[in-house]
């Protein structure tokens, strides 16, 4: 019997189903792996367990008894603790204060109790005990959190969870920010916690880690449990096969046109801290793929191309060089970015679908657009918008509905339509299909190919190697900020060959990425 069991949990957002009758059971002293692609529903499931999201249907069973009311308060009382991906600590408090956060020790005596005087020494002693308990002695509990490393931050969070008598520990991508030896330390710690009968849920893209630690694995795909693997069944191929339904996911449109001879864009990126000097060019109608592992400099390249962090190089469109210092210049010259983070960098949630779609079109100025540049509701701009959202396949109820209410896939398509409505020469797409549903993915691939055929230069930046392998005319592989390899027609090779080139040093990680699951 599990410590906590989720039974037939379903949840949907604005009609899009995120979880469908999902079952999950966590056992004391056992580590359960939860794997799945981006957008498979992992975080929603975690949020249901921790009481942050209320499921539409289904129930939670705690120690064999179904719970009636469940919120983060009850979850915490039940001993559930989450170590989130973003390590949320208060940087200016000490390690001890962070460990004791929420329920600091209070001084004894009448006065101390009445006023709630903080007992700093006591807190520090207790924090040290907790760290001792998990076998860590290298962290100074009196030091501020600001200066500590990601792995130490993780340890602080785990210590805090222990302080709260966590029986159930949920780790979301715990090793994303860790170096190899730190990872080993964390695993040692997790094993000790398992020895103390803690139930652990490990959410991870790193299948070899899951394989190493998990006693059973639940695989999610598109909000459903597609496999529950017991310990002897846990192999990387088994997990991968369950995660990716080839028949659904791998429908890339054929790219059967050749780019034109003329160059639309030449780029030379220099003095960007995360990149060595990089220069390349894009031809009209060419899809230039860019891939690499985390830290390869992909996003930095995207940002530098439109001058998002100030000037980091020279861009030339049709031989006219300029140094972009703000993305506005790019928009006016026809070099547009569809950024990596849809919510934070692309969608303006309170504005309507229409306004979100036309915001870039109006920047072209009076000279080129006449009065339309002043009035976003004018017919010229409206017809441009209508054409683009139809071409890209953005689905919405009303033009006046707020864009924040669209599903992730439709938001992403809206951002692409926004960029295309400016009739760009070059479109820079940074992770365009991350966290996007399968149908929208297909729409996005189709529009990329259609637009390239019509003469658009596309820079497709993605950590999904299958995507760039299938769609690119030419592929640049980055490695620690260096343009390591350039491949013409990557489809002439097998996808696995390409993956070897990503990072020959780290074969273990390659194995994961070779299945196109995500970043290392």
């Amino acid at each position, binding site marked *: 019997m599990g410590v906590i069991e989720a039974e037939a949990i379903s949840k949907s957002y604005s009609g899009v189903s995120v979880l469908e009758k999902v079952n999950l059971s966590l056992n004391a002293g056992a580590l359960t792996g939860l794997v799945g692609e981006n957008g498979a529903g992992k975080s929603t499931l975690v949020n249901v367990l921790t009481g942050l999201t209320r499921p539409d249907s289904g129930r939670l069973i705690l120690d064999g008894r179904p719970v009636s009311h469940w919120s983060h308060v009850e979850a915490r009382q039940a001993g559930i603790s989450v170590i989130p991906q973003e390590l949320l600590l208060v940087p200016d408090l000490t390690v001890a204060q962070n460990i004791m956060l929420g329920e600091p020790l209070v001084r004894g005596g009448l006065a101390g109790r009445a006023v709630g005087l903080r007992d700093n020494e006591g807190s520090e002693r207790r924090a040290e005990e907790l760290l001792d308990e998990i076998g860590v002695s290298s962290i100074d509990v009196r030091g501020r959190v600001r200066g500590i490393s990601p792995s130490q931050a993780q340890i602080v969070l785990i210590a805090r969870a222990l302080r709260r008598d966590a029986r159930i520990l949920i780790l979301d991508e715990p090793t994303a920010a860790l170096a190899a030896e730190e990872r080993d330390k964390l695993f040692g710690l997790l094993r000790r916690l398992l020895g103390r009968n803690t139930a652990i849920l490990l959410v991870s893209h790193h299948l070899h880690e899951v394989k190493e630690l998990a006693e059973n694995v639940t695989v999610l795909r598109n909000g459903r449990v597609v496999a529950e693997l017991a310990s002897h069944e846990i192999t990387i191929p088994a997990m991968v096969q369950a995660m990716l339904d080839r028949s659904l996911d791998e429908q890339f449109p054929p790219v059967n046109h050749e780019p034109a001879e003329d160059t639309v864009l030449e780029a030379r990126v220099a003095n960007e801290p995360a990149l060595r000097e990089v220069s390349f060019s894009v031809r009209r109608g060419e899809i230039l793929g860019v891939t690499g592992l985390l830290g390869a400099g992909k996003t930095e390249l995207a940002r530098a191309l439109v001058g998002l962090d100030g000037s980091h190089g020279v861009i030339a469109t049709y031989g006219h060089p300029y140094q972009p210092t703000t993305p506005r210049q790019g928009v006016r010259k026809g070099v547009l970015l569809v950024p990596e983070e849809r919510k934070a960098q692309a969608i303006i949630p309170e504005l309507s679908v229409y306004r979100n779609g036309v915001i870039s079109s109006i920047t072209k100025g009076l000279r080129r657009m006449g009065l339309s540049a002043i009035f976003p509701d004018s*017919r010229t701009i409206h017809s441009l918008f209508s054409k683009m959202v139809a071409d890209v396949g953005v689905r919405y109820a009303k033009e006046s509905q707020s864009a924040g209410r669209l599903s992730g896939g439709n938001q992403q398509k809206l951002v692409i339509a926004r960029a295309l409505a400016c009739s760009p020469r070059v479109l820079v797409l940074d992770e365009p299909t991350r966290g996007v549903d399968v149908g929208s993915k297909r729409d996005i691939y189709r529009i990329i190919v259609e637009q390239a055929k019509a003469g658009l230069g596309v820079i497709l930046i993605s950590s999904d190697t299958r995507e760039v392998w299938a769609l690119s005319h030419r592929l640049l592989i980055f490695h620690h900020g260096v343009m390591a390899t350039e491949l013409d027609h990557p489809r002439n090779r097998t996808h696995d060959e390409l993956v070897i080139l990503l990072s020959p040093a780290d074969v273990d990680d390659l194995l994961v990425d070779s299945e196109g699951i995500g970043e290392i």
Partner: protein
Amino acid sequence: MRLLGKYGAKQEVQKNRQIWDYLAIWVRPNWETLRLLVPVAILWVALAFLSPSFLTVTNVTNIFVNAAPLALAAAGLTVVMIAGDLDLSVGSAMALVSTACALLMVQYDVFWVLALLIGLLIGVATGTVNGLLSTTFNIPSFIVTLAMMSTLRGIALVLSNGQAVTGLPSSVTSIATTTMFGLSAIIWIPAVVIPTLGFILSRTSLGLNIYAVGGNREAAKIAGVPIRRTRVIVLSISGAMAGFAGIISTARLGVGSPIIAQDLILDAIAAVVIGGTSLFGGVGRMSGTVLGVILIATIRNGLVLMNVSAFYQSVVIGLVILAATSLDSVGSKRDD
């Protein structure tokens, strides 16, 4: 020929249609804003019963004339707050404009129309300076305008030596008594300026940029919105509104005063917030602010008519702000 004529006519129609497209302001009823009409209407009906002198032409005119500077300041602030900024210096800018205009006319014998125009420009300039300081040195506008609130008031006091500037030409004071189509000139200024601002917000690219900058600055930047320029413009608009409000106050008082509008900013923020504009930017409507101003002005007027002490007025206004905003957040509570 006939065909050609037809074609020509069609062209003509399309051209006219296009101009109409640019300028069309079809009034789309917005229920969230109109919700505010309910308390305003209840208040007006109640006051009409409670005080026989409330629903008279003189009194109603009086309400609007009194509210004119507040309405202008609140309108400017609405634009600023939608862009995610704040302008605390409006009242002080009004005092500076009032003092400077009066001094120009009285001490330097500047023609009154020119003096008022210069006053307006001073208002715009204070806003532009706010904007440039905030964007250039990357200081939040809250801090910049807090500093300017003190600085501008100080300049006004220094210029006037702390005294009201008297002896204005009669042309200026007569603005307050002039009427057009039965409405005081004092009402005409906000009646023209505020809808214009509303039009800019809801119908123009500048307005769209303002919402975008307040709604998600990073996204707006990547989409090509000129962040810095938009923010400077927004604060300049607020400065211009302070200019108008300063001129109106000068005309009504008949003196240039460095001590006017000391607490105006509080009422202005209250009106904007009651009107549904978000403190975090990206959300808000001019019509909401106008109703917010009317609500506050009516409460102040009604309480005076009913001989309620001015001390209680503050209490009531405070409670109204709490009621309006808490109702709002209850209404907009998300299900996820």
